[in-house]
């Protein structure tokens, strides 16, 4: 089944589907059914969904179809298939957070983001696979190891693993993930899609199982910036259930995409170009993006964030104790049911001395934030790689052997790319910027000061208008 643009409906964008529904050329029910068939065909292979929800999806699609026929127009997301990370509560639909501890838990209420998407008429297809409790790579995924749609021998990234692979594999038009230290941008990068970590406080976290509550941020993943914007305009805004949400009016996100990027000052982060483990292909990708932005009228300069390469150490020293506080009751009751890797990280959080955690949070984090603010005083947008290269092979990241000191140091180093911008609290957008020689996606991220979500989206959108990486599709056979 093809959309008006000639592409299969499972790869059609929000605007094309919305136009086709209103012109009577497609119906929300047939598009939902096409996605459910796709999930049925591919999920065993790719482990994208923990819990598909076909009944709920078809009911929502029928409701959207009836409303559109009756002239009740709820906006662009009406009848659009979406899915959420299984960290987000859904009424009547189990929510596992990727953990066997919650295998049977069926919440009574929807998270605010789900309530808002449903009120916009979007069609929830199901719950997406993730790393256990969004606390880093598990030794074994409780609901199957997510596989990269571009090459199933490679990882998807995480912790919002399925939120990245679903749009890439045509198994949802848009998704919602959660980013604490990079968990939206990591799978977005490895799966070749767009992922936005919004300004902290722009999107309600009510009904979201926390990882590190003072850094957790929900945000959209999609194939295009334009599609991500449709989600943002729906889920952003103050929520009395989440006192951390901003009381400010929601920006006019679609309007913010217009106008181009002439005169925008882009800062290349010196310490990450190259940073730890950065491949030549990834470095070249960043410079090609910089060239494209220059041709679009942006100006470029180099800026410095000296502590960026130490962000992993700083984060670990305060974030693991914070996460361990949340999980202390679970660890006391059933430590053996946590994944061993997650259990070990939480245990380190419980035994990390206060002197280290307090220094990391009050001094290390603040110093790094000050360095980013200083860099952003010299430019509008920071440009850096999202990951040091394409997605690693699964056997490289799921080692069966004992952990060594070198492994731990490498884990810290690899957090240099996404983590610094998570500290800052401003928006960060990951966008596909090419492919490795092996056909795996590469990605850059644009970061800006808090509240400038429209700016990073505008830069990403302008970049997608002059490139076609987002139009490439993985070869998934007859699925």
């Amino acid at each position, binding site marked *: 089944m093809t959309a008006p643009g000639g592409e299969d409906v499972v790869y059609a964008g929000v605007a094309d589907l919305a136009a086709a529904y209103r012109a009577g050329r497609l119906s929300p029910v047939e598009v939902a059914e096409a996605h459910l068939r796709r999930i049925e065909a591919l999920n065993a292979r790719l482990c994208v969904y923990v819990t598909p929800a076909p009944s709920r999806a078809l009911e929502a699609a029928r409701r959207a179809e009836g409303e559109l026929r009756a002239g009740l127009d709820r906006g662009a997301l009406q009848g659009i298939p979406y899915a959420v990370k299984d960290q987000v509560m859904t009424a009547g639909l189990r929510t596992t957070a990727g953990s066997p501890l919650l295998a049977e838990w069926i919440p009574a209420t929807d998270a605010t983001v789900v309530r808002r998407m449903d009120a916009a008429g979007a069609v929830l297809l199901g719950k997406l696979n993730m790393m256990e409790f969004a606390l880093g790579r598990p030794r074994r995924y409780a609901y199957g190891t997510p596989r990269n749609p571009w090459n199933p021998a490679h990882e998807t990234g995480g912790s919002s693993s399925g939120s990245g692979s679903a749009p890439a594999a045509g198994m949802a038009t848009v998704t919602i993930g959660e980013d604490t230290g990079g968990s939206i941008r990591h799978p977005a990068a490895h799966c070749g899609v767009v992922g936005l970590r919004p300004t902290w406080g722009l999107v309600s976290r009510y009904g979201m199982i926390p990882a590190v509550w003072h850094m957790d941020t929900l945000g959209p993943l999609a194939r295009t910036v334009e599609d991500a914007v449709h989600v943002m305009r729906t889920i952003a805004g103050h929520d009395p259930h989440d006192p951390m949400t901003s009381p400010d009016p929601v920006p006019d996100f679609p309007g913010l995409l217009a106008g181009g990027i002439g005169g925008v000052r882009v800062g290349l982060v010196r310490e990450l170009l190259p940073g730890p483990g950065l491949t030549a292909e990834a470095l070249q990708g960043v410079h090609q993006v910089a060239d494209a932005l220059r041709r679009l009228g942006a100006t470029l300069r180099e800026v410095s964030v*000296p*502590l960026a390469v*130490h962000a992993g*150490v*700083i984060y*670990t*020293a305060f974030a693991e104790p914070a996460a361990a506080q949340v999980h*202390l009751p679970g*660890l*006391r009751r059933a*430590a*053996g049911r946590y994944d*061993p890797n997650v*259990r*070990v*990280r939480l*245990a*380190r959080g*419980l*035994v*990390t*001395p206060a002197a*280290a955690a307090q*220094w*990391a949070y*009050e*001094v*290390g984090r*603040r*110093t790094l934030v*000050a360095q980013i603010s200083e860099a952003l005083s010299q430019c509008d947008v920071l440009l850096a790689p999202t990951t040091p290269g394409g997605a690693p092979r699964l056997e490289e990241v799921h080692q069966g052997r*004992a*952990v*060594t*000191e070198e492994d*731990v*140091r490498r884990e*810290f180093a690899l957090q240099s790319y996404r983590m610094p911008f998570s500290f800052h609290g401003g928006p960060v957008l990951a966008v596909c910027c090419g492919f490795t020689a092996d056909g795996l996606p590469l990605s850059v991220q644009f970061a800006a000061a808090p509240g400038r979500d429209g700016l990073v989206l505008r830069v990403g959108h302008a970049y997608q208008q002059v490139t076609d990486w987002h139009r490439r599709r993985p070869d998934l056979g007859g699925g």
Partner: protein
Amino acid sequence: MSDQAWDQSPGKVGWTATSVRATLVLWGVSLGEDAEYQEVALRLSVLLRAVAALMPAAAADPRILLPDVPGLTERR
């Protein structure tokens, strides 16, 4: 702290693992296998070494307000 104090020979890791186990007992948490305590100990020691090395690099470190005080403001 001298490098010797960060010695990660099997004996030292074992000693640190015992202290990890003791602290977790105070929290009421039990991990199970010895290997996990040893991994926590290893991960903790690498983290603390890295934090200690970073402390002088942070501009907000209150020690910058001090003159050179033996045993307090020395930089490694």
